[in-house]
């Protein structure tokens, strides 16, 4: 429950299809960071590649200790503030199956942390929207955002195949 390195690689690969480099980018990850292997691995890689990593979510899904995950990780509780000027907005699913006892008020969660078109306007105009899937439409983001031009969610899925093929080829000793 703590690492998802191939997802981090495919996320970085996807970002690089849209941006020249990760250096100096503001990458904000919003949602259930506590239960996310993706967020943990992304934070390591993005921070290493020079991006500004911003986490956003409620206390229960984002403890303050998350700040110590990698150098330069920031926690911003207010979603508007977190998203303002972002180059990449990564949404995460609330992992209901792992909540075991944690209390989440769904309506309140949607009100505070759902990515809507209005909220997305706070990010840079050329910002991309990502999600490692599976996605619950209407929970972490609206249909409208999921299907908008800025959304690269399906591209992530496709890149997953390519990047994992590359990982396997490299591990098997393949030549470039």
């Amino acid at each position, binding site marked *: *429950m*703590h690492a998802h390195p191939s997802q981090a690689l495919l996320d970085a690969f996807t970002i690089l299809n849209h941006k020249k480099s990760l250096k100096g980018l503001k990458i904000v990850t919003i949602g259930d960071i506590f*239960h996310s292997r993706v967020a943990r691995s992304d934070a390591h890689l993005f921070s290493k590649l020079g991006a500004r990593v911003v986490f956003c979510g409620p206390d229960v899904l984002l403890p303050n200790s998350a700040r*110590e995950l990698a150098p330069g990780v920031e926690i911003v509780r207010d979603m508007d503030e977190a998203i303002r000027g972002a180059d990449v907005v990564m949404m995460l699913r609330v992992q209901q199956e792992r909540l075991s006892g944690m209390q989440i008020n769904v309506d309140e969660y949607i009100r505070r942390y759902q990515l809507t078109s209005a909220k997305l306007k706070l990010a840079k105009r050329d910002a991309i929207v990502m999600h490692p899937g599976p996605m619950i439409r209407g929970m972490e983001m609206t249909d409208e955002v999921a299907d908008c031009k800025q959304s690269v969610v399906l591209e992530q899925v496709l890149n997953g195949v390519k990047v994992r093929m590359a990982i396997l080829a490299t591990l098997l000793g393949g030549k470039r």
Partner: protein
Amino acid sequence: MSTVLLKGGHLIDPARGFNALADVVLRDGRVEEIAEPGKSKSTADETLNLKGLTVAPGFIDLHVHLREPGQTHKESIATGTAAAAAGGFTSVCAMPNTRPINDSPAVTRWIQDEERGAVVNVFPIAAATLGSLGEKLSDYRRLKEAGAVALSDDGKPILDDHIMREALALAAKVGLPVIQHAEDTKISGGNPMNEGVTSFKLGLRGQPSASEWQMVERDIRLASQEGGRLHVAHVSSAKSLDIVRFGRASQVKVTAEVTPHHFLFTEESCSTYDTRYKMSPPLRSAADREAILAALIDGTVDAIATDHAPHALFEKEVEFDKAAFGITGLEIALAATITELQHTGKISLTRVVELLSTNPARIVGLKGRGTLAEGSVADVTIFDPKKRWTYDVEKTRSRSRNCPYGGMQFYGKVRATIVAGKVIFSEL
């Protein structure tokens, strides 16, 4: 019975403020004479030459799990006490979380029966509540008559304020201490490690140290009202130690023990999901470990106890989340104490003996033990404080190997263990 002469060793007996070379004569299971070297007039059947070695009153472990009755795939009274002997312990206090739970005089007696094959003294700690369910008190008077030296629901804290109050009050009347495994399970959630940066990085749920210190705080408050004797088991956090200090300053009868693993390691050791570092209470932060070392030095901590908790391979070789809590420790307690505390100059050998023998005897009221005064029980631990050695867990006398000490280098080795005048372990 025979007579044994312990010749030329360095006798340390903190109970009498004794710290000098001396000959010790043991006869019929008792200490007959303490004499200046070469001055004894007694004749001995057997002489042990102990030049360069330290002679101490037998070590007493306040906290072991012998797993018998009921879980002999982990340990038995015979194998657990053999490990104790190799670790220099002449007495162990056996926690009641066996199957069945030791909440009755019958089980308390059964544990002490000769047929169990114990090689060191076994003093049962009886369950404070029936079935350790925390609902109804067990029969303290009859348990004491049967040989129980303390009451505890170890592993399961007594959560209910009212029951804990009653337990302290009744135990005070009977004259036994209540040993609390301080953990508010409503806060800890039974989570597998300490809550903090490491647990977040590992994606594991954590137990905040508040689950310990809030319980210690409550217990001390209750003890101050009821006047009972409270012993806090395996203290793991800085704040709990502060509360113990505060309690003692307010005249509450409270004592505390710590384990070797809590003063040797921190939560960082869990970073590779190695289940040999999973126990309850969990390894805490570096600051907590520093506080424990300071408390061992300043006297806040009374005793070092192992919380020897054997488990079979199949109970430990699983996901960190699912692994059983607890590690073994009887065979390295002295070595860990010397290596971490005495060899580094933080505490004296006298303090080592206090922590492992003098104070534990006082806490559970073992008359004639924890000292080698003339007339006391001939339980003796002989060790070489300077000996450098490597622990080989494959050669353990315990039935289980669930500890991280294999391959670790230590200073301080037990050379002989004597129970009631009989040498039961020797590397002389």
